[in-house]
């Protein structure tokens, strides 16, 4: 598991790690927000199979649609529980046991 404080840092991390199974991304972050991070990742074909899930306080339908259209695979609104994250990962085909 890798952590990053904002989108730019996450992009740098990804260059080191290569494609991961999934990234959980907050919408509101300094330097580069989660939406821009999703857009950037989706521009690069090597990450095409990597799942992206927005984890955010943004609950407007328009925001959900915007994130999905940008290439996010899933969207979860805060507050949430661990079980909800597990359910969402299962939807994405990730076996979390």
């Amino acid at each position: 598991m890798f952590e990053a404080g904002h989108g730019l840092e996450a992009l740098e991390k990804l260059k080191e790690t290569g494609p991961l199974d999934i990234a959980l991304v907050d919408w509101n972050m300094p330097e580069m927000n989660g939406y821009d991070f999703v857009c950037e990742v989706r521009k690069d074909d090597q990450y095409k199979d990597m799942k992206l899930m927005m984890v955010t306080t943004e609950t407007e339908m328009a925001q959900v649609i915007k994130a999905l259209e940008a290439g996010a695979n899933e969207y979860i609104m805060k507050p949430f529980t661990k079980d909800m994250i597990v359910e969402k990962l299962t939807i994405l085909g990730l076996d979390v046991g």
Partner: protein
Amino acid sequence: MAINPADFDYISKIVREQCAIVLEKGKEYLVESRVMPLVHQEKLESIETLVRKIKSDPRGSLKDAVIEAMTTNETSFFRDIHPFETLKKVIIPELLEKRKLKKELNIWCGASSSGQEPYTLVMLLKNEFPQLNTWKLNFSASDISNQMLNRCKSGIYSQLEINRGLPAPLMVKYFERIGTEWQVKEELRKMIQFRIINLSERWPMMPQLDLVMMRNVLIYFDVEMKKDILGRIRKLLRPDGYLFLGAAETTLNLDENFERMPFKQSGCYRLKQG
């Protein structure tokens, strides 16, 4: 606040009498967790006070409220995922092929609780099988609880409920934001006929069924009632129809006319062929 044994016995007794649901010793936590919100809502001191009030007015609404609280089950959209994968990949395509001349499908969700399961199924049908638009779809969803049925009909869910198991692309497609809550779009709500059915009593007339969803409800009944319910489903099910039970449920040693289908963790059964 712990429930005392006499009050547990009393609540077990009324729940069993009203809907044949068995609450064995060891389920005290369940009764406490379900009934305490009612105690607070009614501004009572304890479960003991609640039971005393019910005993003093056995025909009052409090007794019904306890039954409601005890029969409301936890649920989520696409609960357990595997049954819905099996429906999408195998069962529905097979039924569509078999019924292609008549173009009619009869489906019953027998323990709908707050509606996530029937709505999951209609979302799946609408999203994956658009050809059904020209079919006659008889889709019934029932629950014992009037309160739950009203929730089903409204199709309104909190943000926490929406977070549970519902794929975001389907949320965007089939829900509308209503203030801080989310409502299933009318096009889906009108596909389902919601009705009250107490599984332990007489069932209303139903057509021959292609698919019965009866998940996570048999566990609440004693063996005789499980046999009775499975027997009645057997008579309603078309010979090539399917029954889905919960992951912890089985027809084994209850009704030998069913056979389990070899689909991963799906709880899928059909009548023995031949």
